[in-house]
């Protein structure tokens, strides 16, 4: 029973990572209705920026917020320079552009900071919380930050004019434009926010998985899994989905003998397919009704 509780808790801890990533994915999906394959690499790159700032002697929290600001600007710039010219290109071309960004960030990070594994500091400490040995202070901090972020996003989208404008731009660009929303900039803003959330995710994840250019790949896939399980359009669903993926992954890795450690990834993916089979738009998604 203690093993079970422990696995649930450590599943929740890793789930926090996925929830964070899933949240960033859902953010960008809401803004542009595409899945950004480069999201993980952007987050990784942001984390390297934070690492560099800390190396240069900035205190952790200053580096933390500075990185968020830089990532936000970076996200906006990427949208304006790379994706705005592709505005009218077919969707498949956009996905190829994501793949190109993926390659560029991965390669650049390796070039600038090389591929050796670096440790990344945690602001919460690695000691076990309450001395129970079940969940570390960092894991708890990560979950709390994810939940706070979710709350802030909820408030932003529900209670600010700009949040409302972003929602309008995403759900009906033409009508939004007619009532004076600058749709292009709302999309850019969505990119900036997604990059910033990705940066937070990266900085929280790095102390656990260590910093290196390929750190995000598996996490991105789990993040996708979380986002899809949650339904892609609901930030809250993404967080719940992320936690669910973490817990299921951990339990399956522990209790299903064939799975073991190296098959964990397959389990997460089986979970995606299973959820999609029974609920094709995810647990908290809504079915799009189109008019003929």
């Amino acid at each position: 029973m203690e093993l079970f509780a422990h696995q649930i808790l450590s599943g929740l801890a890793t789930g926090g990572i996925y929830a964070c990533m899933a949240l960033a994915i859902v953010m960008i999906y809401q803004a542009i209705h595409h899945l950004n394959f480069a999201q993980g690499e952007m987050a990784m790159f942001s984390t390297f920026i934070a690492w560099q700032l800390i190396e240069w002697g900035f205190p952790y929290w200053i580096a933390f917020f500075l990185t968020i600001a830089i990532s936000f600007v970076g996200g906006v710039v990427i949208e304006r320079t790379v994706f705005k010219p592709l505005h009218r290109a077919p969707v498949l071309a956009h996905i190829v552009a994501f793949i190109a960004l993926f390659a560029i960030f991965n390669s650049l990070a390796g070039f600038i900071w090389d591929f050796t594994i670096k440790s990344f500091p945690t602001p919460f400490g690695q000691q076990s919380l309450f001395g129970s040995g079940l969940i570390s202070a960092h894991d708890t901090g990560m979950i709390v930050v994810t939940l706070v972020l979710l709350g802030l996003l909820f408030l932003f989208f529900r209670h600010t004019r700009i949040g409302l404008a972003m929602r309008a731009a995403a759900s009906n660009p033409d009508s939004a434009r007619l009532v004076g929303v600058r749709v292009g900039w709302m999309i850019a803003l969505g990119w900036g926010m997604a990059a910033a959330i990705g940066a937070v995710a990266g900085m929280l994840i790095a102390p656990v998985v260590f910093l290196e250019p390929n750190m995000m790949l598996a996490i991105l896939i789990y993040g996708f899994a979380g986002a899809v399980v949650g339904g892609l359009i609901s930030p809250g669903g993404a967080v719940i989905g992320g936690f669910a993926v973490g817990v299921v992954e951990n339990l399956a890795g522990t209790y299903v003998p064939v799975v073991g450690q190296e098959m964990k990834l397959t389990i997460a993916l089986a979970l995606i397919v299973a959820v999609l089979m029974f609920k094709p738009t995810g647990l908290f998604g809504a079915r799009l009704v189109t008019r003929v």
Partner: protein
Amino acid sequence: MTDQSMTSEAPAQGRGKPVAERAGIPVGLKRAALLIGLIIAIALPFMVKNFTIFQLTTVMIYAIAILGLNLLTGFNGQFSLGHSTFIAIGAYTTAILMEFGGFGFYATLPLAALFCFIVGFLFGLPALRLESIYLALATFALAVATPQLLKSAPFEPWTGGVQGLLVFKPEAPFGIPLNSDQWMYFVTLVIGLVLAFFAVNLVGSRTGRAMMAIRDNPIAARAMGINIALYKTTTFGVSAAYAGIAGSLSAVVVQFVAPDSFTFVLAIGLFVGLVIGGVGSIPGALFGGAFLVYVPNIAEELSKGLAGAAYGAILLLVIYLMPAGAAGLVRAIVMKVLNRRA
């Protein structure tokens, strides 16, 4: 991401005209290009080094897989980021049959195609319930899981686990004076031509029109009495069979199958090849294949440390310059030249 927005504008022009004229380039010109291309393709292996022949064979193998993907994505509107899985199944079918079943290579080829068709058809069933981005993710999941499954303990006695399996390359039969690289080049060329011929005819047929109707407007297609589920799953099967044939050929050309040759990177590569070559264009597949084989090398030569960044930059550049792929660009240029003359 609706189905309509996904397809490029290409098929919209010239609706109602005879099929051959739809693409806009006159049939005579197309035939001439095909003939010249064939002559070059036949002459090439006698003029270049064995390694170049190997590369050209690989281009054609990729082109076959991209063609299969094109039938699915370009003509039927179903995403797949998981076609590496079907290539893997084709390759392993051939390798396992040759290693444990004592089959000759040529006997394994149709079996690999058939097996992939069945698996693809079955995967097409759950895929029916998923739309656009969800399908892309589910297939991506398949691609990510494939190497892990191939390495996993239950399959290891057959797949050789991480080490993979060695495959023998067939020599030219009947004393034909060709070395094995040249021979496999011609085998691939002939199979590729047959498959391309089949694809052209499929797309031009009643079935092909049904496939495209489903892509353009599933509701209207259903109203016209098209059995959507049947067409979608069958297209998935045919597409997987193409990938399986490509996999089977690649197994003997590379003389080796291993789980790490079939990662999701391959699946994404095929997708890139499809878009770069031209969605909904059959000759475009060849260009996509060439892109997959040569551009990473070019990127590597531009800068060793930044090869990935160079690859990404080239990719972005290509997308900017020809958002409808190589086929779209060629079509635009030819049309411009023809119009000026007229």
